């Protein structure tokens, strides 16, 4: 056997082992080790929690949070990342959960509501704050989505809720736990060189020997992103330290990099508009107070819009005001930052209002 020439390949085995070992151990994307369950548990136990690499399936986290939470939640906020910093203090509710997530679409809201309904955890909900963003009404935004796989996993809940709000008979539908996949059977990332390089960089920046995938924030020394027990989001130190000039730079770069303005030339999609109204009708019919929270764009971004070439936001606001009037809903805020009086200094970047500045400009507390 040892005379065989084929044995000359054996010294290269360590290279394959290195590739697999770094990808599995580093796992910066949390593909092989999911910290989502542990993070959800920590939040529900009342601890602020983080995922070390910053890579987390937000939708999976929201789903697992919903599955584990008690059924006594009374107030929700739902929308895209623009609502993720809204806290229980901002809304003046103790039994509050923030279910916002990045690139949050109407489908995500339906998925979460569907999960809650199937698990009978929606019985005490009396107030929902909806934060409509461009993702809700503009299909051109969909190609910027990075979490389609998780959305597909949650599709049964989305479909269930969609059928419910459209008056179809869904009495026979049952709850089946979602399977998010992952683990060692993910072939592509296991042998991926780009994932290897990401893991090498990740391991180089962390304590390799004591690698923590998630943890509890116990003091002010932690500088990364984390979630609060009410589901709201706290940005990392580097983002928090961004100032007004950074907001102006980011607004410019963001627009150039992502060709964002091209998307704002669109008009509101009629299908998405119809689904939104169906949802509002359903919630009202179930005696839930619906409020609409319009999160402004940073002035640095708003100033780049030409209302004639980019009618999307003015059109959307006009539509939502009509819906609010039609169904007697409270509407808070405006997409136009100048109507609200908010400045670039109140933002982290072109779209996200600073945590702690929200209640200065938006009264999200319930009006009885």
């Amino acid at each position, binding site marked *: 056997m040892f005379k065989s*020439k*084929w044995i*000359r*390949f054996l*010294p*290269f085995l360590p*290279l394959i082992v*290195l*590739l697999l070992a770094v990808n599995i151990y580093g796992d910066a994307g949390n593909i092989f080790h999911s910290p989502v369950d542990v993070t959800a548990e920590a939040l529900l136990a009342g601890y602020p929690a983080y995922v070390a690499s910053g890579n987390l399936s937000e939708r999976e986290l929201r789903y697992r949070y919903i599955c584990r939470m008690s059924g006594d939640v009374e107030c929700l906020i739902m929308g895209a990342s623009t609502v993720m910093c809204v806290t229980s203090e901002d809304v003046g509710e103790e039994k509050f959960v923030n279910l916002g997530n990045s690139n949050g679409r109407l489908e995500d809201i339906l998925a979460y509501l569907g999960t809650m309904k199937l698990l009978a955890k929606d019985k005490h909900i009396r107030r929902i704050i909806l934060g409509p963003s461009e993702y809700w009404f503009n299909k051109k935004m969909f190609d910027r989505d990075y979490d389609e796989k998780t959305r597909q996993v949650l599709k049964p809940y989305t479909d269930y809720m969609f059928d419910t709000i459209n008056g179809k008979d869904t009495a026979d539908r049952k709850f089946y736990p979602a399977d998010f996949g992952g683990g060692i059977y993910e*072939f*592509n990332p296991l*042998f*991926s*060189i*780009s994932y*290897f*390089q990401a893991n*090498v960089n990740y391991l180089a920046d962390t304590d390799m020997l004591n690698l923590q995938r998630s943890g509890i924030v116990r003091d002010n020394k932690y500088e990364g992103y984390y979630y609060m027990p009410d589901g709201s989001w706290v940005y990392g130190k580097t983002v928090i330290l961004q100032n007004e000039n950074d907001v102006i730079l980011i607004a410019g770069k963001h627009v150039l990099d992502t060709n964002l303005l091209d998307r704002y030339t669109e008009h509101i999609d009629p299908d998405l508009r119809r689904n939104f109204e169906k949802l509002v009708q359903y919630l009202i019919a179930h005696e839930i107070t619906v409020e609409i929270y319009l999160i402004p764009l940073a002035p640095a971004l708003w100033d780049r819009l030409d209302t004639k070439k980019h009618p999307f936001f003015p059109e959307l606001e006009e539509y939502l005001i009509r819906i609010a009037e039609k169904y007697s809903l409270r509407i808070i805020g405006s997409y136009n930052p100048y109507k609200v009086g908010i400045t670039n200094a109140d933002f982290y970047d072109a779209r996200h209002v600073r945590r702690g500045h929200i209640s200065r400009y938006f009264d999200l507390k319930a009006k009885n």
Partner: protein
Amino acid sequence: MIQDILYWSPCFMTLTDQLFFFFLIVSGFLYYFAPKNFQKHILLAASFFFYLTAAGIKLYKLIFVLVFITGITYAGSIFIDKSRGKNRTVLTWVCVTVLVLALFLMKSAYNILAQIFEDTEKFGFMKFFPLIGLSYYTLSAIGYILDVSWGIYPADKNPVNIALYVIFFPQLVSGPVTRYSQMREQISAYHPLEYENIAYGLRRMLWGYFKKLVISERFAVIVSAVYSDYGNYNGAYIVFATLCYAVQLYTDFSGCMDIIMGAANLFGYSLPENFDAPFFSLSLKEFWRRWHITLGTWFKDYVMYPVQMSKIMNVLGKKCVKSFGKKRGKKIQFYVSMFVLWVLIGLWHGGTAHYFIASGMIPFLLLTLSDIMPSWISLNYDNIFCRVLCRFRTVLLMCVSFVFICAESVGNALGVYGRILMNFAAPVTAQLPLSSYVTSTDIALMTSGLLIVLYADYLKDRKTSVTALIDRQRPFIQYCAIYAEVLAIMFFGMVGNSSFIYFQF
């Protein structure tokens, strides 16, 4: 169910995917451990599957194209072989015309019409499925038909052999353009599992991945940064970026060829080389003998020589000799044939104006000019300084074409030339400095990578190779060299979604 199958379009697989390696392992295993008589059938099935995933089109479209091309090639060659005299000529013309038309319609027609007419909607039906590799295997098919017609060898009556020749997967998407005489014996032979084939194949593929992922992709960043914003860069930067494109193109294309050759070797096949250290050429003429060799020789053998020997050209030649004298007259005849050759090469590159000019007209112009230059102007090749100067001159002359490719349109290319000539040293007004696009690690990798490639080509120019050099060392050094290559790819390879440049043809 049948409709679902026919409309099936599996995930897209490229030469840099992990899926490709998985495909090689599975097909290699089946290939070598299947019964002897089924080896080429397995390779044919693997080739078909590879093409289905690499092309990313629906199954029924792929079946149609492959059956059409292979059918014409197989049936046409058999009928041609059986016929004689005028019938043989007519049949040959019919088969070749059908294949050329198919290639033209499926590849270039829409592009050409879109350049001429503004309203492209009415020609939308001509925007056929952009089938990668079509240009390469169609040429191989045409070459086979012509060889049979000229009596170089008889038609092969085994359809599996012809099908495998046409769609042999390593050469499918980017060449080389093979001749049936080079493949006939290999296709018919049984290929036992041999260590040397696997070892050499893997090493060749590794070298290709190193050139593409570590070197080419990095140079591409600079080219893209400058050319996407050339109005804000001065002529010096643009010249530098064009030189970077020369490196990018060569390492990309030759890297692709190395991967293809290596993959073919894994199955016991040897494909013809496509590059012979082209940037060590002392003249443009020599460059075109060393660059994309199989395409050049194909056009020379199947287009230029037949055109030159044709009756029309003979008549033209006699008239030119009568009018301009023997020497000039024959030259004119030669230049006309060359013009036809380069027009077709330009069209082969896709029919867009800038590619037509870059890959057809400019080479023709420069080659003609270099031919008519007086002999006292040429440099002494015995002098080492002159040789270096000549090589650099060749690269610069090639960059004249590359500007059109990088600029992606004739208008932009003329704008670029304007910047080079009028604003060679003007201040740079780009938003971000060029240094922001590359780190110091990138610069180190690009420099060392380029030196390694140049050294490898220098050895090739001396009729040896890096592989031979490494094989002469002790085993420890050999392993270190291969380890270094693999680790360079693992740590520094830019494995993104970019494809190989010549896939577009």
